[in-house]
């Protein structure tokens, strides 16, 4: 789902950089309340785990592949704002060190995978917290919405001839199916952590 250089019109790149920078700045402010300094190494572990998991491209029969994205997982373990920061660090590292995702599209890639996936995943998890399927649906719907956002961004770009009617359904259908794997992986990890290390899961403090 990493958009390369050349797929987005320049004005979309600028808007996505501005939107992502604003959300990251707000997340830095909010994350201070969300996590104490003793849990900072946990951010590193979650981010490193997501980076490693994203390197594993699952080959799907039919010639398609997908990799775990991990936005919902980061949000559930770390909290949404710290989750945004952890995912942003992974996507920025992938772009700057490994050239995965275009530099011009970095703002859009952060928006899709570190903002939409994280906040949608967390909202779903929070709404269904008492349900057994909360983390599965969080993982699934988080990546699905991120894929639709990606489809919209490329679909309104001139290089795609504004074929939004092609890009959105293609991204939505494939990631709607592949997202089931993301949901299962998210639910498995959360279930394990809840069973053996429940203190590691973020607990929202209401004022």
């Amino acid at each position, binding site marked *: *789902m*990493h*958009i*390369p*250089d*050349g*797929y987005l019109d320049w004005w979309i790149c600028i808007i996505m950089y501005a939107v992502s920078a604003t959300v990251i700045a707000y997340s830095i402010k909010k994350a201070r309340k969300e996590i104490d*300094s003793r849990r*900072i*190494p946990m*951010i*590193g*572990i979650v*981010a*490193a*785990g997501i*980076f*490693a*998991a994203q*390197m*594993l*491209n*699952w*080959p*799907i*029969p039919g*010639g*398609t*592949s*997908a990799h775990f994205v991990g936005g919902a997982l980061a949000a559930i373990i770390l909290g949404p704002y710290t989750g945004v920061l952890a995912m942003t*660090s*992974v996507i920025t*590292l*992938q*772009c*700057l*060190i*490994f*050239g*995965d995702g*275009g*530099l*011009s599209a970095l703002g859009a890639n952060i928006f899709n995978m570190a903002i939409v996936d994280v906040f949608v995943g967390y909202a779903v998890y929070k709404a269904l917290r008492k349900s057994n399927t909360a983390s599965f649906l969080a993982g699934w719907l988080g990546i699905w919405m991120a*894929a639709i956002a*990606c*489809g919209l961004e*490329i679909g309104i770009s001139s*290089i*795609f*001839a504004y*074929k939004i009617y*092609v*890009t959105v359904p*293609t*991204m939505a259908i*494939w*990631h709607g199916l*592949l997202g089931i794997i993301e949901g299962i992986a998210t639910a498995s990890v959360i279930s394990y952590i809840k069973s053996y290390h429940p203190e590691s899961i973020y607990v929202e403090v209401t004022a």
Partner: protein
Amino acid sequence: MRKAYVAIAIMVALAPLFAWLAEKVNYSEPLENAAEKSGVEEEKALYSGIFPDYTVPGLNPYISALITGLIGCFIIILASFIISKIKNAH
């Protein structure tokens, strides 16, 4: 914490296997499918990174996947360790 490091190490160790499998099935991602359907070809990147597409110059792609996986995880964990130390010092 130790179990989490072991899990990360296992995933990095599996990276070469997944790289090989992906090559075997000639995979493409949904984003590439959307580009193909729209008649779009990928342009040359503005910037390719230090290890372009998780490769290390002179090494085969499988060993490269292993090494770049280690490098990526090391950078992230080191950064969080440094931030943690700075925060605790204050």
